[in-house]
C-alpha cells in the first residue's frame, strides 16, 4: 500500500451531502477483476454525458481542478455500497485525501486500505476549506498526517483526529494481513477454544 505522510495540493469542492458510492463509481465499472484503471470513471455519470463527452460544469472537468489531489465534500460521503472500487477510483484519479464532516463506515475503512486519508472535521471547518477549495488552483491546501494538521491557503491551521493504529499503518504503508499474521498464535488459540465451546460453527 502507498504511504501517506504529507500532501500539498489543489482541493476540489463537492459540497453535496450524501455522495454515495454509486455516484463515485457506477456499477458498470465493477465488472473488472483488477484494482487499477478506474480513475477515468470516477464520478462517471456526473462527469460525462451520454456521448462520453465531458460535462464542463462538473468540478473535476474544470481546468483548475483536473489535477486535484484533495476532495472537500459534504456530510456522509461514501454512503451506500461497500464497493472498494470507490476508493480505488479516487486514488487512481490522484486524490489521496478527502475532507468531510462525516463518512459512511465501510467507505471510511476502505480508504485506509488504499493509501487515502479521510479526514473528519466539524461542518464549519469544512465550510472554511470549501471556500478555500473554491479559489481553485491558486489555493493549495497542506495536510500533515504526522502532526494531524491541515493548513489552508490563508495559513489557518486546523487539527484533526485519526485513530492511532490507522495512522501508523497509513504513514508506513503497512499491509494489514501481514500484521495480523504476526498474531496467528492468538487466532489459533481462539479457534481451538471456540471449536470446543461452539462446535457447530
Amino acid at each position, binding site marked *: 500500500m502507498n504511504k501517506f505522510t504529507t500532501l500539498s495540493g489543489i482541493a476540489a469542492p463537492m*459540497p*453535496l*451531502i*450524501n455522495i*454515495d458510492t*454509486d*455516484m463515485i463509481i*457506477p*456499477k*458498470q465499472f*465493477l*465488472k*473488472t*477483476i*483488477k*484494482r487499477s484503471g478506474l480513475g477515468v470513471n470516477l464520478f462517471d*455519470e456526473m462527469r460525462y454525458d*451520454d456521448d462520453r463527452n465531458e460535462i464542463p460544469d462538473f468540478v473535476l472537468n474544470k481546468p483548475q481542478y483536473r489535477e486535484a489531489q484533495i476532495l472537500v465534500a*459534504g*456530510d*456522509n460521503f461514501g*454512503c*451506500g*455500497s*461497500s*464497493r*472498494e472500487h470507490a*476508493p480505488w477510483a479516487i486514488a487512481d484519479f490522484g486524490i489521496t485525501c478527502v475532507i468531510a464532516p*462525516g*463518512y*459512511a*463506515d*465501510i467507505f471510511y*475503512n*476502505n480508504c485506509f*486500505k*488504499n493509501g487515502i486519508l479521510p479526514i473528519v472535521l466539524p461542518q464549519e471547518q469544512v465550510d472554511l476549506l470549501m471556500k478555500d477549495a473554491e479559489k481553485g488552483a491558486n489555493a493549495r491546501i497542506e495536510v500533515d498526517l504526522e502532526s494531524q494538521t491541515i493548513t489552508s491557503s490563508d495559513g489557518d491551521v486546523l487539527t484533526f483526529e485519526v*485513530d*492511532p*493504529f490507522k495512522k501508523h499503518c497509513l504513514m508506513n504503508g503497512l499491509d*494489514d*494481513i501481514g500484521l*495480523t*499474521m504476526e*498474531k*496467528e498464535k*492468538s*487466532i489459533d*488459540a*481462539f*479457534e481451538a477454544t*471456540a471449536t470446543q465451546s*461452539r*462446535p*457447530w*460453527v
Partner: protein
Amino acid sequence: MSPKTLYDKIWDAHVAHEADDGTCLLYIDRHLVHEVTSPQAFEGLRMTDRTVRAPDKTIAVPDHNVPTTLDRANAATMTEDSRIQVEALDKNAKDFGIHYYPVSDVRQGIVHIVGPEQGWTLPGMTVVCGDSHTATHGAFGSLAHGIGTSEVEHVLATQTLIQKKSKNMKVEITGKLRPGVTAKDITMSVIGATGTAGGTGYVIEYCGEAIRDLSMEGRMTVCNMAIEGGARAGLIAPDEKTFEYCMGRPHAPKGAQWEAALNWWKTLYSDDDAHWDKVITLKGEDIAPVVTWGTSPEDVLPITANVPSPSDFKGGKVEAAQRSLDYMGLTAGTPLNEVEIDTVFIGSCTNGRIEDLRAAAAILKGKKIKDGLRAMVVPGSGLVRAQAEEEGLADIFKEAGFEWRLAGCSMCLAMNPDQLSPGERCAATSNRNFEGRQGRGGRTHLMSPAMAAAAAVTGRLTDVREMM
C-alpha cells in the same frame, strides 16, 4: 458481571486478540463471497502465496452479475466482462476449496438469501461479506456486516477482521402494525426518522412488539436496510421463531449439537439494564405504507403525502433535495399517489423471499398490470422460485402480466441486463434509490412488495390499503 447488550455478547465471544488501544481481531464464523467484490482478493492471495484459512466457513455464490432470463444457461446472455467475473469465481471456489453454489445449482440465489436458507447463518455468529447488505443476517441475532475487498482478502487469509467496537443503539417499534403496513415500511420509516447517517458508528438492535411479531423474512427485511441508515449492523435477538426457522436447515447443527447451540442461543438477548448510547422509539400504529420520493433512502414519506419542497429542509439537504427533485422529474406539492410509473421490480435481498412474493401475489390475484407497464419478479433464490411455483404464486404473477425470472440481484443494482432507461420510473422493492442505481437516468421509488404490486395494477404510486 456488568449488563450487556446482544451486540456486546456476540462481540465478546469473538475477540481473538485485543491490542492496548482497543483494536481487536474479531473472529469470523461465516464468510460469504460473490463474484463482484472478490476477484481482487483472491488475486491478492495468489500474489502473496497465501491460502484460505477456513475454507469450510467460506461460502460463495454468483448473484450480482448473472442474467435472470430463462435462457441464461446460454453464455451469450452475458457480456464478456460479466462472464469473466463469474468464471473467476468458479475457478477461485474450486482452487481454494470453498463451498460453492454455481449458477446451474437450484440453490443459487442472492448471497443474503442463500446463507439463511441453507442454514449457514445462525444466531450468535459473526458473518461478513463484501456487500453492504450483509446486515440482513442480523435478523438471526448474528453480527453481520459488509466489508471492502481488502477486508475480504484479510478474512480469507486470517479468518479475522481488524475492528474497533461500535456504539449500541436501540430502535424500538412498540405495539402493533396497522393493516397494509409491513417490515419494509418499518425499516424505511426508521431511516426516514434518523437519516442515512443517523446510524453511523452504531450497531442497531431492533426490538419491541412490532419486531417480535414479524416473521424471519420480515426481520431480514428490517435488518437488511440497517446499512441504509448508516449503521455497521442491525440485530434482532433470536427467539422461538428464529430457532424454528433454523432447525433442519442443511448446515444447521443436529442432535446433541443442536441442543448445545440452542442453550447458548437462548442467552443471546440484551440484559434489562444494559447501556444504550442512543435510543429511537417509533409507535407501530403510527407507521404508514411509505415510498421514497428522492434519491436517498432517507427521502421517505407516507404514500398519502405530497412531494416535498426543498424549502422544507435545512442545511445541505436543501440543495440535495432540489437536485433529487430535478433528477426524479417531480414537482413539489404533487400528491405522491399521482406519480405515474413505467416499471415494477419485485425482488432483491431486501424483498426477494417467499413471504414477499406471497404479499405481492395476494394483491395481484385475479388482476392485470396496467397496459404498457414493464413488470418483473426476480425471486431471491432458486428455492424461493421453486416454492413460489409450488404455491401457485408464479401463475398469479404471470397471469397478471409479470415476467417470472430466475434468481439474482437483477435490477436492484442493474449490473446485469435488467436496467432502467433514462427517465424511466420504477416502483421497486429494493433498497437504494440513488441516482443511476437502476440504470443511468432511471428513477427509483422504494416500497414494500404489496405496494409495488398495487402500483403495477394502477400504473402509479398507490396506497395498497385501497386494494385490500
